[in-house]
């Protein structure tokens, strides 16, 4: 499979030799999105990331160097759904000509009250929509390399399909009454909807909100009543609150789930596919028998 992809790239490269030097400069707003764009762009795209690995995209403040990164780019990929609240100011101040592409176009948003939950990438079918959007945007910006982008996207989509099947198979092995998990902030709504695992969290959708005593008490009561077996931490959040809840309920803290950012190369989740694999492994080992 990998070789086939390699050959496709070579063929594409030979087919478009005139453009071999000028790679398409694009910017992605955060690490997971950057990984998707890299997979579709392959060696024809030059991807810069604004909020890198282990960075928190909710509470991020752009620096002047980000405006500079933006200024040279042809496309700025953003998640949308309210994730990048800091974006409008950045775009204004950079005064750039980049096309802004919202990759979540076409995703059915989950609602929390009146606001959409931005964490749509936690469901693989949604990411397949992301990938299609990225592909179309890249082709529109660089029609000469259309064949490369199509081949890359098609290849990546088959990988995502098998990943999706993998996740469903893993969840199917967990007894339905044990499919309940506590995490630090409410980032797994789409995962829950797509795969039927229930996630509860003391902090809302953004890491910025603060919990009330009522929320914590309700969560503790629910953990006790439903006998929820495991709580998970995330790579960005302060875990003292979740540790306290675990101590009070007897649920075990069972490692880390990665929600909003990839890890660096040495970590367990350097790519989107690794991230999903890591999470699903952590879930099955905590919730399985």
């Amino acid at each position, binding site marked *: 499979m990998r070789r086939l992809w390699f050959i496709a790239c070579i063929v594409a490269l030979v087919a478009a030799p005139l453009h071999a030097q000028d790679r398409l400069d694009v910017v992605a707003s955060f690490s997971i999105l950057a990984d998707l764009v890299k997979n579709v762009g392959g060696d024809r795209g030059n991807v810069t990331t604004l*909020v*890198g690995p*282990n*960075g*928190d*995209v909710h*509470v*991020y403040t752009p*620096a002047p160097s980000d405006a500079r990164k933006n200024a040279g780019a042809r496309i700025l990929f953003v998640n949308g759904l309210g994730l990048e609240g800091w974006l409008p100011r950045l775009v204004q101040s950079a005064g750039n000509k980049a096309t802004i592409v919202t990759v979540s176009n076409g995703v059915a948003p989950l609602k929390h009250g009146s606001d959409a939950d931005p964490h749509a990438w936690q469901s693989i079918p949604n990411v397949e929509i992301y990938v299609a959007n990225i592909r179309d945007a890249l082709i529109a910006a660089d029609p000469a390399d259309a064949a490369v982008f199509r081949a890359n996207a098609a290849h990546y989509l088959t990988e995502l399909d098998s990943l999706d099947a993998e996740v469903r198979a893993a969840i199917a092995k967990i007894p339905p009454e044990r499919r309940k998990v506590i995490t630090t902030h409410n980032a797994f709504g789409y995962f829950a909807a797509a795969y039927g695992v229930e996630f509860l969290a003391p902090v809302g959708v953004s*890491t*910025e*909100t*603060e*919990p*009330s*005593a*009522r*929320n*914590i*008490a309700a969560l*503790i009561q629910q953990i006790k009543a439903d006998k929820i077996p495991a709580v998970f931490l995330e790579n*960005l959040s*302060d875990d*003292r*609150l979740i*540790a*306290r*809840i675990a*101590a*009070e309920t007897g649920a075990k803290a069972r490692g880390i789930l990665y929600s909003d950012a990839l890890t660096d190369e040495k970590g367990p989740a350097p790519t989107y596919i690794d991230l999903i694999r890591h999470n699903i492994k952590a879930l099955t080992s905590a919730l399985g028998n």
Partner: protein
Amino acid sequence: MSLYAALVAPFTDFEFMRRALAAIIALSLGGAPIGVFLMLRRMSLVGDAMAHAILPGAAIGFLLYGLNLLAMILGGLIAGFLVALLAGVVARSTGLKEDASLATFYLASLALGVTIVSVKGTNIDLLHVLFGNILAMDDQALLVVAFNATITMLVLAVIYRPLVIESVDPLFLRTVSRAGTPAHLAFLALVVINLVSGFQALGTLLSVGLMILPAGTARFWSRDVTGMISVAVLAAMFSGYAGLVLSFQTRIPSGPAIILVAAVLYVASVLFGSVGGLVRQLFPGRHLEA
């Protein structure tokens, strides 16, 4: 809902509520007296300045040891001490006032902190991670605030006289004793310890708010420092308890709930306080005549 269920049951049912209450009591004992002296010395805004001043220390701790709370707190303490002491020394030895010299040092410190964080190129909001939440008190955080309260009360007992005299009449103190400067520096150190450990346990809002608002309340109920300190400690404890209950019953986040209660107490005191309250001023009682 019975009164017991509303006011007591939250604390008997949930350990995190008991821990939060214990933390509030310790914080009130340490922070409220400090707040009174800050107010008397016109340094009420020092707490907010300090929240920014600790950034370079926390950032260096983060650079050396990663996301290690202890390293970040120690770094923050050192940065806070440096800023407070340098500002204190400059204010004492030159004509620059305390608030102005503190402002310059904390701004420089903040700039240094932002620079260090940017060099590392991380996008984690360090202070966001460092600042804790009253509902998440672990053993370590509880010990820290309790230790804090103990140290604060002991040191205050030692430097109480020079501190009071200097707050009221610094020139007089200078003519009779040379304890003024050391007492002032010891006091600044207390301020920093209370703030930084308060930040990591409870967050900025609570640790500064429970210091300053009860002190402002106390000003309207007592004329002497001892009385003010007692009122401030009681007001802080009451705000903490009532705020926690409020947060439990209404879903208002705990930190803001506690500070809002303290603010209501303050407003009521401004209006009805027995010492200089507005209502008293408008409708003074008859003067007793001999």
